[in-house]
């Protein structure tokens, strides 16, 4: 049996008496894109820091490509490409200079370096802007270059910490497409994001973290099946019948009304049955139903159900 590309076992990190990561364990197989999701302060960045060898763990082990990160950091890091949340680039230098510099750190020189730089620029569609200084780049271009640096030394494992934060839809789609290409080429990705649709589109499995531990881990489909809830949206004409309003409020509906209609929205574990019951009640009350919409459960509703709805920071 092949060793997993990432093996995390009983990983802990404490700062003083504060336990930030609590006994984390998971494995990521070759060619898999594994999503690490969680609200702010869940411990994702610390976990990524430990997996990248930047933060020493308080306990536990990390293996990259079967090599212990603590015992053989240099060998393990050769297999690892990091795409940090910060741009982590030199704005005074050109994209080419940045790539050449980071390539040399991984032992690439001469023709091998030129080839890899050309590949990385092509992979993120920046080949025609290679000689521009990074300070002149848009945020989207910087994000793409950030990704290119992570791919430069052809690592088997790529760790991505929110690689699409703060950019427009076009750049985000470009990056997501580049990541799909990487997955198709057999790379292993550990993907940390707040954009849950990206995780749903890219990841074969996801782990949802909260308060330093994994609270759910499975394929997105299984998580939705187990923890997902649908969303019902209904618009009623004024005035809303008292009995109907009471039923909606009992279901935790949120009201968004206008002069022309009263709009309600609530989550439901059995959206089909609940919507059918609601329409029947409206008919009994002679209420005017202007529109009714049923949204399928998504990873976002799973995330909210599991981690709660309160703001974390």
């Amino acid at each position: 049996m092949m060793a997993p590309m990432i093996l995390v076992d009983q990983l802990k990190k404490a700062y003083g008496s504060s336990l930030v990561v609590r006994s984390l364990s998971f494995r990521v197989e070759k060619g898999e894109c594994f999503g690490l999701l969680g609200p702010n302060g869940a411990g994702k960045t610390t976990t990524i820091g430990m997996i990248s060898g930047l933060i020493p763990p308080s306990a536990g082990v990390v293996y990259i490509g079967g090599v212990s990160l603590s015992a053989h950091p240099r060998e393990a890091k050769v297999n690892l490409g990091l795409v940090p949340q910060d741009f982590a680039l030199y704005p005074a230098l050109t994209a080419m200079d940045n790539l050449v510099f980071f390539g040399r750190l991984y032992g690439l020189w001469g023709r091998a370096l030129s080839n890899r730089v050309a590949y990385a620029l092509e992979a993120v569609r920046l080949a025609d802007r290679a000689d521009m200084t990074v300070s002149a780049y848009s945020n989207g271009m910087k994000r793409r270059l950030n990704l290119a640096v992570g791919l430069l030394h052809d690592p088997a494992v790529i760790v991505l910490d929110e690689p699409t934060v703060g950019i427009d839809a076009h750049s985000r789609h470009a990056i997501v497409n580049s990541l799909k290409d990487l997955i198709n080429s057999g790379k292993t990705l550990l993907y940390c994001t707040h954009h849950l649709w990206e995780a749903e589109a890219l990841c074969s499995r996801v782990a949802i973290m909260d308060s330093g531990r994994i609270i759910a881990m499975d394929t997105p489909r299984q998580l939705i099946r187990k923890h997902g809830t649908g969303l019902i949206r209904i618009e009623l004409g004024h005035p809303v019948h008292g009995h109907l309003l009471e039923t909606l409020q009992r279901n935790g509906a949120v009201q968004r009304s206008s002069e022309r209609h009263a709009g309600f929205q609530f989550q439901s574990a059995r959206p089909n049955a609940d919507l059918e019951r609601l329409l029947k009640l409206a008919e009994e009350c002679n209420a005017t139903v202007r529109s009714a919409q049923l949204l399928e459960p998504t990873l976002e509703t799973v995330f909210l159900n599991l981690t709660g709805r309160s703001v974390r920071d």
Partner: protein
Amino acid sequence: MLRQIAAIALKELKILLKDLEALALLFAMPVFFILVMSFALEGVFEAGTANHPIEMLLVNLDKGPIAKQISKDIETVKGIKIIEEIEGAALTRHRAEALVKEKSSPMAILFENDFSESVKRFVASSEADLPRVSLIIDPATNRQLLAPVQAAIRALVERRVAISRQIHQIKERFSTLGEEIEAVLPRQAALSAPYAPAVDLAILAPKGTASTVRPSATEQNVPGYTVFGVFFIVLPLAAGFMRERHDGTFQRILAAPISKWTLLVGKLLPYYMVNLVQIGLMFAVGAVVFGMHFGTFYGLIPISLALAACANGLGLMVAALGRTEAQIGAMGVFFAVVLSALGGIMVPTFVMPDVMKTLSRFTPHAWALSGYHDVMLRGLGFADVWEETAVLSGFAAFFFLIALWRFRFTE
């Protein structure tokens, strides 16, 4: 590892070269200081020498011969130049006072019209008043400069008074000889002969001692402002480290198979090289513009290497202790400017009070300057500057230790 160090150093050099203005400032600032301060302070350091004599106005209102004789005596003193006429006219008291007031001249000597008579009265009677010579001085004149001039004038005036007294005493003693006394006395021409030094006072520097050798303006300013400029590397170095920490590039580098030592050495290397180039350039300016002598050239090498290490260590320490750009700026300026002042860069330590002299020994600037002076002024060589080199290396080690203890690669 060497290739990784080279890669980091090349990258850092590229970034430094992108900001040519900042880099140029590192070189231009000490050159500017050397040029301006050397010319400006030439008067302070070299005043009173044969090449740069102190110019003194002399207002001679005396109707007798003695003031004239004293004036001639003063003219024989190397380092003092007497000006008795301006635009062909003899100086008046009023004109001399005006010239001193407008700082055209540091001082004026005034002999009143009865000076010779007052000398005669003084030597003839113990009851008589002392003959008076007035010095008209701008209150802002450097007193340190003034003291030896005052002493020289006093000595020459007293010499003339003494000669007059001797003549008077001889005349009194042998008055019975009547007219024949004149034949016995030295001829008037001999009495009025100008002062001729009877001794050559040579100032020698005992080997290995620092107290008697004083630098010229160039010898003070070239090494002084070189040391000053070298420590200005603290600002770009610390800011560069902080920027990398803030931008997350340190994290990205350390995610590569690279040690923290490799990163630090690679990052510091270009700054160290910039410092060495800076030192070379400053001394070249000294040699080309001012004809400065280096002494034993090899003696400058250990001092320069240790000095650059010291400045780099200080820069890393500031990067480690500073949390914000403002903190780094403030600390950088403090260490670069205040320690320079304390270390005798702007004002030589020999004019400082004892407390300041003691404090200056706790600055790397003072030791570096002392090392350079050992080589340039005292003729010492490579083997003789080990003490300064060792102390500077100690400072460097201290700064690096503090830096490594406190330094964080992430925010």
